[in-house]
């Protein structure tokens, strides 16, 4: 069977360009110098692993990101290595023909293919909120994953649920790991994930025949083990206490920390502050906009995005922990003051001569 390299050669990719891709990917994976050779070797000798790319409830931003990977080869990774045996958005085939390919790959490579899921299945109304090929997506997802080697959850949708699962989640959109429980699942969250992170993860799996090391949330450690904030270049301003206070103030021009403008960098695990976007050109904070935490679970429900403290909704009111807490504490304060006033009256009565308090019924045990 074809190796990756064979496929790439057929696409007219030079060996030089191929080796460059291997070293770039090895570096972004945090692997040492020797690994790029290992990666090249693996890609040259191993039969390629078929990838079935399914789309559920989603916006296709993951695919859009993926095909914009910095290295020109990445698009070939998509179009040749993966392009997949099946990807309803990118493949040429359509209709019955497409579905036939899916069935064929599942049969031929039983237990050996990878399922990459973009989007998630809504479970409400028996899954009828998302139909693919005339059937609920959830059924098809379960079917295809049954004989898979592993599953990749692309993006915030597949990993956590994203906007369609935000409260009140009318369609009961559900992340993949809550539907598929018997397969190794690797989450690559983000809305969308960074292109280099996506190709890096795929290349790692293809090269080493195993999933990269995952953290406790099931994300690859090499890209998600640190927060944006841990490597943010504005961090010295954070520690100094220098914050942007309004979008158009002097501090914004000076590039101070965006914490007070609601930056979610301190609570977001992703590689944006190191790998950056669009071929390493920039990332939100570098462009003067706080992080919105798009790779975090429930980030839509932890808003507003431009406010440091998330809103909470106890007793049907909305506010931050501080505004709600201050109201409750104020109420308790008033109650204490009233109680103190009554106590003072009581104390004065007791002290008054002829007081009967010590012989009243309260005295009897």
């Amino acid at each position: 069977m074809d190796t990756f390299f064979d496929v790439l050669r057929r696409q007219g990719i030079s060996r030089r360009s191929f080796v460059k891709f291997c070293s770039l990917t090895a570096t972004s994976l945090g692997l040492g110098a020797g690994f790029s050779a290992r990666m090249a070797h693996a890609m040259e000798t191993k039969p390629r692993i078929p990838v079935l790319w399914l789309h559920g409830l989603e916006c296709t931003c993951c695919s859009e990101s993926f095909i914009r990977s910095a290295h020109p080869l990445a698009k070939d990774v998509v179009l040749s290595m993966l392009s997949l045996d099946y990807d309803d958005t990118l493949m040429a085939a359509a209709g019955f023909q497409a579905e036939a390919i899916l069935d064929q790959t599942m049969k031929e490579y039983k237990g050996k293919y990878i399922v990459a899921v973009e989007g998630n299945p809504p479970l409400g109304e028996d899954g009828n909120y998302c139909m693919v090929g005339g059937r609920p997506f959830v059924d098809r997802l379960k079917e295809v994953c049954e004989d898979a080697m592993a599953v990749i959850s692309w993006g915030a949708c597949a990993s956590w649920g994203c906007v369609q699962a935000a409260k009140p989640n009318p369609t009961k959109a559900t992340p993949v790991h809550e539907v598929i429980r018997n397969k190794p699942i690797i989450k690559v969250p983000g809305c969308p994930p960074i292109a280099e992170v996506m190709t890096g993860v795929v290349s790692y799996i293809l090269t080493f025949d195993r999933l990269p090391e995952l953290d406790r949330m099931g994300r690859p450690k090499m890209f998600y083990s640190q927060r944006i904030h841990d490597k943010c270049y504005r961090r010295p301003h954070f520690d100094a206490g220098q914050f942007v206070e309004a979008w158009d103030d002097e501090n914004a021009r000076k590039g101070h920390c965006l914490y007070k403008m609601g930056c979610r960098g301190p609570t977001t695990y992703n590689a944006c502050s190191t790998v950056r976007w669009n071929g390493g050109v920039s990332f939100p904070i570098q462009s003067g906009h706080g992080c919105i935490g798009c790779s975090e679970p429930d980030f839509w429900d932890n808003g507003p995005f431009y406010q440091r403290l998330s809103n909470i909704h106890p007793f049907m009111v909305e506010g931050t922990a501080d505004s709600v807490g201050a109201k409750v504490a104020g109420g308790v304060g008033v109650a204490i003051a009233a109680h103190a006033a009554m106590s003072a009256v009581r104390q004065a009565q007791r002290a008054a001569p002829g007081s009967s308090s010590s012989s009243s019924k309260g005295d009897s045990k």
Partner: protein
Amino acid sequence: MANPSTTLPGVPDATGTEPHREGGGSVYVYQIPIRLWHWATVAAISTLALTGYFIGSPLPSVGGEASDSFLFGYIRSAHFIAGYVLAIGLVARTWWALVGNVHARQIYTVPVRDPKFLDELWWQVRWYSFLASEPRKHVGHNPLARLTMFFLFLQTALFLSVTGLALYSEGEGIESWQYKAFGWVFSLFGSSQRVHTLHHVGMWVMLLFVMTHVYAAIREDIMGRASILSTMISGWRNFRDTRE
């Protein structure tokens, strides 16, 4: 100080295990470790609430070069140091509950099935509702105080320590012992931002305890039948009358 060995038979204290000593007499209730812990915790929580508030809503921006200032860094450091005082203090306090005197164990349990406790609890509620003209005598905490100390203080302090150490572990990195020990907090509550929010809500719950606690301590010291404030300083409970 009156003779501590003066006892009147037949009146068990709130824990139901020791004879009541009174007659204007005194009982040694809070041992030195308890008192030290109490005031260390007061200092820690005051620091934590103040710095915690400013972590959530920072002071106005500092001018000049970033290298000339470390204001937010110091505020956070103070929070973390006080946080460790609180957390380690809790562990030490729990150890003392095991080895200290009977009063050291009070805030760790609520004897909900003990009819005597319930009876005294009801009496205390009536006392605070101005329905009883006099409180009963308690060597240790009164039952209502014990309830709030167990539910409002102990649980909240535990919650804040656990979520606080979890948040701290994020700065230390996922290979740190703090993350290994407390990383589960993020799986439990979903996300780091959620844990921040809940930690912040915890502060307000703790403040509610402090408000009611300080008010009740001062009120009972004035209106009750025994010393309260001085007891947390000297350790001795001085009763003011000889009646039951």
